[in-house]
């Protein structure tokens, strides 16, 4: 059975007070239900299972349980890269909602991460949007800035702003007004195969400390074993790319703007700074110089790295805690000797903190999703059933469901979720969860700008592709991307 190997890396990964503060907006400096300054795997364990919550009773105060209405709802659902466990919880959520609110006619629609924004934008143009939507963290600001969303804060559904991660509240705030509530917040971690490390002559229980080490380890693995070292992802229009490249960019001291600082202003474009170029150079070195990463990185996403890792053909990757469960699901589907090989990989799976940059800076995308209510004029039929919308939002963002819906792959948006019995159960059953919760204080939200989706999904991957294909040099690719961001923000396009 796999043992959790946190080592010194995790110890060093306990609270970085400065970074925690960087996640706090002034308005959120209240009294959160958990003490963020004590955040550590031990602290998370100590609060798990200490409080009970009655979701139906709490939400009944927001929208009476016998309320009769109709709700259209779109959400970013589970997709091929998610574990079966999560699928089960999504199913249970909608069943429970229908039992709790039997008189609300719910018409829900699940969309994948990559399809949701496109479809939602198109629906809005035709005033055919759903009444409520759960969007990826990247999307909220764009739609708030355009005036599509109704103001919505945690207090509107019976919670307090302090119940949510301050950094997450930034992502639902535009021009000082809150337009949504975080459902889940996640940070990824670093995953490696101890057996591959051992065979490549590396310490099997020690993650690379810096991104420069990742480049070195990746080359060593490739040169000695002939397999890919690090699971680089550089596909355009796929959320996986910024989630894996931005931590690298920030660790080197770069950024799109100054989003990695405590009080970002998003004024100066820094995508072509020497630090940003150093981060891009590291990717170039792995892909072009050393050829130590999957060649398919330009057209594939993380879901393609998972089977590669399970087949023992990939040494390291950045991913969710859920990848352990995904590996178990994939292993169950394997047959013959593949099944045993997969089990060997699972036994050798290790999680650690994401490496730092040359100056010891560690960073990860503060990801997640938010839930919003649309303005009636953009909704099909021109009406929004607010009590019905608030009922589902109250349930999804409750301590219970914000945890269950993030059971295997993320963390509850509502901090009270960490206190529930399900969190305790989760800590015992989901391996490596300690590591990913330890990364939370290092989380940096994407720039809270309406242009963020284009920057993260198009411009940053384009920069990577231009450099990695040799279409441009590293310098040219970074300069080109910086110019595009500048034009976009200045409204030249």
């Amino acid at each position: 059975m796999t043992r959790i190997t946190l080592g010194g890396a995790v110890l060093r990964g306990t609270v970085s007070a400065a970074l925690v503060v960087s996640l706090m907006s002034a308005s959120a400096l209240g009294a959160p239900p958990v003490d963020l300054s004590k955040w550590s795997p031990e602290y998370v364990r100590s609060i798990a299972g200490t409080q009970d919550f009655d979701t139906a009773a709490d939400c009944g105060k927001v929208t009476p349980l016998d309320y009769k209405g109709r709700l259209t709802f779109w959400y970013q659902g589970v997709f091929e890269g998610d574990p079966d466990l999560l699928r089960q919880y999504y199913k249970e959520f909608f069943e429970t909602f229908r039992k709790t609110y039997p008189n609300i006619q719910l018409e829900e629609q699940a969309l994948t991460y990559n399809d949701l924004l496109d479809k939602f934008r198109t629906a809005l143009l035709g005033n055919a949007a759903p009444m409520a939507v759960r969007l990826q963290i990247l999307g909220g600001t764009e739609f708030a800035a355009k005036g599509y969303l109704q103001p919505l804060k945690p207090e509107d559904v019976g919670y307090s702003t302090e119940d949510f991660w301050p950094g997450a509240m930034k992502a639902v705030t535009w021009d000082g007004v809150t337009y949504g509530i975080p459902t889940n917040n996640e940070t990824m971690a670093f995953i490696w195969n101890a057996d591959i490390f051992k065979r490549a002559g590396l310490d099997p229980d020690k993650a690379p400390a810096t991104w420069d080490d990742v480049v070195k380890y990746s080359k060593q693995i490739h040169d000695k074993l002939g397999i890919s070292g690090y699971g680089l992802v550089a596909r355009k229009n796929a959320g996986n790319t910024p989630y894996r490249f931005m931590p690298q960019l920030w660790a080197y001291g770069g950024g799109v703007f100054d989003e990695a600082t405590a009080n970002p202003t998003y004024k100066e474009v820094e995508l072509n700074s020497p630090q940003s170029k150093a981060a891009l150079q590291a990717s170039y070195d792995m892909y072009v110089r050393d050829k130590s990463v999957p060649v398919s990185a330009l057209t594939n996403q993380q879901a393609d790295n998972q089977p590669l890792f399970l087949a023992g053909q990939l040494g390291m990757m950045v991913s969710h805690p859920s990848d352990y469960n995904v590996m178990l699901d994939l292993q169950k589907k394997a047959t013959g000797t593949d099944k045993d090989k997969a089990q060997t990989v699972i036994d050798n799976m290790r999680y650690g903190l994401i490496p730092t940059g040359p100056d010891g800076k560690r960073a990860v995308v503060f990801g997640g999703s938010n839930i919003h209510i649309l303005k009636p004029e953009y909704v099909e039929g021109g009406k929004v059933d607010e009590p019905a919308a608030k009922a589902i939002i109250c349930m999804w963002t409750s301590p219970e469901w914000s945890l269950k819906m993030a059971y295997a792959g993320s963390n509850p948006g509502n901090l009270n979720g960490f206190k529930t019995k399900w969190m305790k159960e989760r800590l015992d059953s989901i391996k490596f969860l300690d590591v990913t919760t330890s990364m939370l204080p290092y989380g940096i939200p994407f720039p809270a700008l309406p242009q963020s989706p284009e920057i993260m999904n198009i411009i940053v991957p384009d920069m990577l592709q231009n450099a990695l294909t040799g279409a441009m040099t590293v310098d040219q690719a970074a300069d080109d991307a910086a110019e595009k961001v500048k034009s976009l923000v200045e409204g030249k396009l």
Partner: protein
Amino acid sequence: MTIVTGKAEARRRLQSGRSGVLWKMWEHRADYAYVLPAIAVMLIVIAYPIYYTIELSFFKTPPGLQLRDKIYVGFDNYTNILTSPVFWKVTWNTMIWTLASTFISFVLGFGSALALHRDFIGRGVLRAILIIPWVISAVAASYIWKWIYHSDFGVIGAVLVGLGLADRPPNFIDNVSTVLPSLIVVNIWREFPFAMIMMMAGLQTVPEQLLSAAKVDGASAWQRFWHVTFPHLSSVSTVTILLLAVANFNSFIIPWIMTGGGPSNASHIWITHIYELAFGRQLWGVASAYSVLLFLILMTLGYFYVRALSGNERKEGSA
């Protein structure tokens, strides 16, 4: 005795012609009534979008603004497109994609049709097999081909490495030089059965008597093909080529699913680039200007298509 001048006669004929047209229209009023709903629907679903796209092409649509708050920029979008190096790169890709796919699909389809026109054992089975690529879902085919081409553990790569013909799997779709030809191969694989079916239908119309007569007169197989079969297939060939060209200009599924236009725009063709500009980057104005340009090109092709069809009808009418 009435003297009719040439001028007066011409006027009279014109008037009677006009009243004749009107009379004919009146006689066919029921037919017009039948097609009126279809015309109304077309006006709503085709004419209005065309008008709106043209209108939108003169506006800028920043990501922070709703579409209704668009900013008038005149011909800036057209200027920006035509001066953008990406546009010319994508245009070049589109030309290669369309011409190569159309030409090779047609040649392969025609060749297959000629082969399958002959009577031999297993012809029916072979026909059915060759039609498979055309009838299966383009989405499913794209995903399958993506795995066949996969740069790390694709089927082709595994076979080549397994046979010792390559040290590592060839890079088909993660390389700017090979990605477009690789996608064209998939497109041809999917499209040539269409050309084959069209040409097989055309071959049925070639008169057997003429072929027999030519044979009796001592014409070789090539001469029979070139002087009898081919002239009979010129119309259906033109229509097939035009239909393939229009379909290829509009081809979206294969490049979008397999590469998303990447890497580094190397497999973007107009239609995928327009989609990315509109839905990925929300540059609705630029995407509309792009669409207007594409529309003009397709209308030109459509004109030739209609002319080819009319030519066929005239030929058939005079035959």
